């Protein structure tokens, strides 16, 4: 107990390496959790953002050389190389967003497994659409995005088998004006609910006075009265667990993916109950309980979603 107390007082040195700016939704969740931990005094936090994949390995090694105790990041573009680096620095803990598995002794992985709340948000959307057309604007068709879209579509279809989806990827993480135009085009084609994977989509929804569903981050404060529901990702569970393990000297190779599940508080659904019909709210809550209780599993499908014709 005393040793753990000392470790906490010394606070752990954590570095994060992001391939995109910290405003990117996905990254912003990790960044937020780390900042929270830093504010609590658990960790000392530094980060490098917008690191090109070419440079990623160098940055990992630099941080490891600097004596960072925990390095957090995403290695989707360099799975193999990242594991090699981890092998070279067995004293350093690595916690990386990854599609593959952990590697002993020090390489752990996580991912944004919030398909459960996405499914629930889909239920809200499916019930709310009157035109039976839902528009979805994505950045890139990568598994992390596709998976949530499919879960959302599954939820919507459960409550409304007639619903059709229009899907569009803008091939850019940051082009809100383009995302907005894409959304407008979908609305012109009849969509009355928008799945807002990118910045810009909810803005379009506000302008046309229709509803949107949020994803990863909670934007209901920015668009009051527009966001029906959002599937949120909370990295706190994952980060806190990893930090505690490092502090306790018990960090080892593990898959932290489960800490993004609802049951661990890694994922959650916020509903704007003033916008969703009570019977729908009830159905969603019931489904949520099923999920928490392990009675319902949301399908995982990483393929690129396409529009219904």
């Amino acid at each position: 107990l005393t040793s753990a107390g000392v470790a906490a007082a010394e606070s752990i040195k954590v570095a994060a390496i992001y391939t995109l700016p910290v405003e990117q939704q996905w990254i912003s969740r990790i960044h937020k959790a780390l900042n929270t931990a830093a504010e609590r005094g658990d960790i000392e936090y530094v980060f490098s953002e917008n690191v090109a994949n070419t440079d990623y390995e160098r940055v990992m090694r630099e941080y490891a050389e600097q004596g960072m105790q925990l390095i957090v990041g995403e290695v989707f573009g360099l799975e193999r190389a990242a594991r090699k680096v981890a092998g070279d620095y067995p004293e350093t803990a690595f916690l990386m967003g990854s599609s593959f598995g952990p590697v002993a002794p020090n390489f752990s992985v996580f991912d944004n497994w919030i398909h459960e709340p996405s499914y629930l948000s889909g239920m809200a959307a499916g019930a709310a659409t009157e035109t039976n057309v839902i528009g979805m604007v994505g950045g890139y068709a990568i598994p992390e995005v596709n998976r949530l879209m499919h879960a959302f579509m599954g939820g919507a279809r459960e409550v409304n088998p007639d619903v059709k989806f229009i899907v569009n990827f803008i091939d850019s993480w940051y082009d809100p004006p383009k995302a907005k135009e894409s959304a407008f085009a979908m609305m012109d084609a009849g969509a009355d609910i928008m799945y807002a994977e990118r910045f810009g989509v909810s803005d379009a929804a506000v302008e046309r006075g229709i509803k949107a569903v949020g994803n990863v981050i909670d934007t209901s404060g920015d668009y009051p009265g527009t966001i029906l529901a959002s599937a949120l990702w909370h990295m706190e569970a994952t980060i806190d667990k990893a930090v505690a393990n490092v502090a306790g000297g018990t960090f080892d190779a593990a898959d932290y993916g489960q800490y993004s599940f609802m049951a661990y508080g890694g994922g959650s659904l916020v509903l704007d109950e003033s916008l969703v019909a009570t019977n729908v709210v009830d159905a969603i809550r019931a489904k949520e309980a099923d999920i928490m209780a392990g009675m319902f599993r949301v399908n995982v499908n990483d393929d690129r979603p396409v529009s219904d014709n």
Partner: protein
Amino acid sequence: MIRIEPRQAPSRLMTLGIPVLSAVVALALAAIPLAFAGAGIATAYQEMFKGIFGSVFAFTEMLTRATPLIFTGLAAALAFRARLWNIGAEGQLYLGAMAAVAVGAGAVDAPGFVLIPLVILFGCAAGAVGMAVPTVLKSRFGADEVVTTLLLNFVILIFLQMMLEGPLKDPMGLGWPQSPPILDQGMLPPLMDRMRVHSGFIIALVAAGVAQFMLVRSVWGFKLRAVGENAAAARHAGIRVNRSMMSVALVSGALAGMAGVSEVAGLKGYLTADLSPGFGYTGIVVAMLAGLSPAGVVVSALFIASVFVGADSMSRAMGVSSYLADLVVSMSLICVLIGGFTARYRITRVKPLRGEGA
């Protein structure tokens, strides 16, 4: 009043001293953003130095970063010599990389001494085709190659996404838009244990040497220079202008393609859509800093890579935003440009002669 006059013969000291001096000035200017971000200046420079020369690792990382820049720098230098404004090295790089994984990732199963040349050959050929298209559009239709190559970069990048989600997608990639890895025996061998620097660097040096030699010593280089300096006179003198343009286009594209091969088969092993953080564009800067001399390209690529790697590492050590690195690189570029100018021209103040003799 200020006049600009060409220097008659820039002295040795100047041709060597001025680039060094301008690099120093550029680094001194980096103090401004550092101060803006509230970092300690002296330690910052120390950290920057350490980031380049502080360890074998740092130094090899710099060489690794310089490797693609030498290739794209050569691609730009040769094309620009012929006044063929190839702004499309970025796209050609990706074409090269796509071709490299298309043959190297299992389509051909051959021993390394067959597979490596094959990967290089296909990569270079793909890059060459990428430059041949705008060159044909230029010579047949007069379409400006600055614009066509620039736009083709976008087209190729989008095409790459399509391939990575389609035929080139790794079935084992868990859905990620990435290609399968190049077979182990198809990879360019690394130069040092545990370091990323690979034999692509050696190939780049050889390519620069050959390019330098060909430019100065060969009939091909003669024609290329003549076409670049005065196409009308070259044609009047019986040089096949279009043919010469096309040949340099192919070489330029091939070199850019080779940058892609080197990155994918030397470094990463497989292809994603963010293989290059703008190596194609930086190559233009590298080439111009080198005065379009192939040998100079090596020096300026090493310079740019050092500044970037050093400033990047310093930004981390100092806890300053990592955008600092790009900022320092771009300031260095501008300083070296101006420095190169002062080596060639003299800016003099002229006293006005008004009223004398009256």
